[in-house]
């Protein structure tokens, strides 16, 4: 690629189960103010903006209407990606490569606490003809996927529980995280069964929050930031959305998105060339499944590696030092935003007590949740 692009500003509100004192407008405004401040720019210097939202998660039938004001993007080029935050990041990245401009802003926001009928909304994403008439919970989809994953790889429920224990513990040291806790595997295994083998504790609770990032082309990036974090590779992919024909054991979307990102970054041995990863763990087993899909672990290896502590902060390959979705909270379309944010903080050496030693390359991955098969991956270096 001829142009290099870096993240030069990242702002967030942090993530909490509820944020009753601010509206979605103020939430994004706070994250944007911090991001612009960090990059040393104002919104007028931004060439284009990309917002991330899904209508029913915001409670508007055309949610993108409400995107410009709180970003300072009135009468400016801005559009919305109803996808993951990393999709929006990719879209902004492509705008810079296309020559549309040098400075781009990407926004994502979650007000999950404002959705009173969240389960119905997720059910509403299922095929209306073949799936919805059964009136089954979207968690049944996760339960079935978990069962098949355990069956194919030999991973155990205890290993999944260990993911929960690790991530919630990591979150205790992350001031942005909203769901940190000190628990053990027994606690997870004994929690209420939602859709066997999936228990309540295997499911990440949701959070509110906002993330805004400023991207810049190489020369501008070096001018704006002392610690630009470079986008070395980015990928996104969608497998079949149908429940009937999809591959239930493997996360093919994550594999394909990772392959695209690895190719761009020139990475051949991800486990060696990448120092740590922030991986979607909306459900505990997803962390293991994604690790294997992205070839960071061989099939069947992620469970044992986790059990032996290999993915702990002090482990051989740290995974979700932030606390992941299980510890920070499920942020829906912002999930990727939080992952990228943590990788940026680690690479800048700003991750506080969870700071990893001498890391230079990190991976952030996201998944769009039940019932989708869409995944995104970005590889960042300092």
């Amino acid at each position, binding site marked *: 690629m001829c142009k290099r692009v870096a993240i030069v500003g990242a702002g967030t509100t942090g993530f909490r189960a509820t944020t009753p004192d601010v509206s979605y407008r103020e939430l994004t405004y706070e994250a944007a103010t911090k991001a612009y401040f960090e990059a040393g720019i*104002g919104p007028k210097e931004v060439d284009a903006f990309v917002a991330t939202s899904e209508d029913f998660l915001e409670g508007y039938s055309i949610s993108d209407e409400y995107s410009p004001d709180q970003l300072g993007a009135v009468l400016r080029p801005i559009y919305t990606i109803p996808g993951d935050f990393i999709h929006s990041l990719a879209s902004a990245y492509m705008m810079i490569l296309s020559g549309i401009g040098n400075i781009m802003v990407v926004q994502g926001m979650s007000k999950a606490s404002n959705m009173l009928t969240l389960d119905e909304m997720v059910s509403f994403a299922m095929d209306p003809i073949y799936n919805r*008439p059964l009136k089954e919970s979207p968690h049944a989809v996760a339960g079935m996927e978990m069962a098949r994953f355990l069956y194919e790889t030999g991973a155990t429920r205890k290993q999944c529980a260990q993911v929960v224990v690790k991530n919630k513990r990591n979150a205790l040291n992350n001031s942005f995280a909203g769901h940190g806790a000190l628990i053990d595997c027994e606690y997870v295994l004994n929690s209420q069964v939602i859709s066997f083998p999936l228990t309540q504790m295997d499911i990440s609770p949701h959070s509110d929050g906002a993330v805004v990032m400023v991207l810049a082309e190489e020369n501008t990036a070096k001018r704006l930031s002392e610690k630009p974090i470079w986008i070395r590779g980015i990928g996104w992919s969608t497998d079949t959305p149908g429940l009937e024909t999809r591959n239930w054991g493997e996360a093919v979307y994550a594999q394909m998105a990772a392959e695209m990102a690895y190719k761009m970054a020139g990475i051949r041995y991800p486990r060696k060339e990448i120092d740590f990863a922030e991986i979607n763990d909306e459900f505990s087993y997803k962390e293991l499944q994604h690790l294997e899909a992205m070839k960071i672990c061989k099939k069947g290896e992620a469970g044992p590696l986790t059990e032996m502590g290999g993915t702990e902060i002090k482990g051989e390959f740290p995974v979700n030092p932030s606390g992941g979705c299980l510890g920070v909270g499920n942020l829906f379309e912002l999930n990727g935003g939080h992952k990228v944010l943590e990788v940026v903080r680690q690479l800048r050496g700003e991750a506080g007590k969870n700071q990893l030693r001498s890391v230079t390359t990190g991976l952030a991955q996201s998944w769009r949740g039940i019932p989708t098969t869409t995944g995104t991956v970005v590889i960042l270096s300092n």
Partner: protein
Amino acid sequence: MEITEKHVAETATKLSINDILGKKVLSVKWEPKLKYAWDNGPALGRYLAELKNGKIIAKKCDKCHRIMIPPRMFCELCWRPTGEWVFVQDTGIVNTWVVSYVDWKATRLDIQRGVRPITPAVIEIDGASKGMGILHHLDEVDPWKIYRGMKVRAVWKPAEERIGAITDIKYFKPME
């Protein structure tokens, strides 16, 4: 490659709604419950609270000096936090308006039987900056005699019925 009738002929099968309701073709019904409780935040929260008090409150930007309604915590144009709260009048002028023969469900009103058309308008509020309008209804007026620049005044619900909502103002009516 012209796109002709031949190309598009079989791309879509025309139905009438009666084909679906009459089960000539198969279908599935669904009624999702999509319910929310949106956090108001300090700006709209205060706006609604003052409506309950029978007052309209705005917020001022210290830089562009716009007095903005509805109030907001930041000025979207100057990109900075807004300054003082300002009470504005409950009067204004009609910027633009509609004489609607349909309600929100696109159901036709029975105009022949004397049902009054709905007359929503953008009303520029006195005391706010020029051009600062809100959407509301007009009433106690001949729909066909509304004009641009017409002076109007808010008609409030009685204090005990107000809940802190935009509908605490029943409608606006002409000042003469």
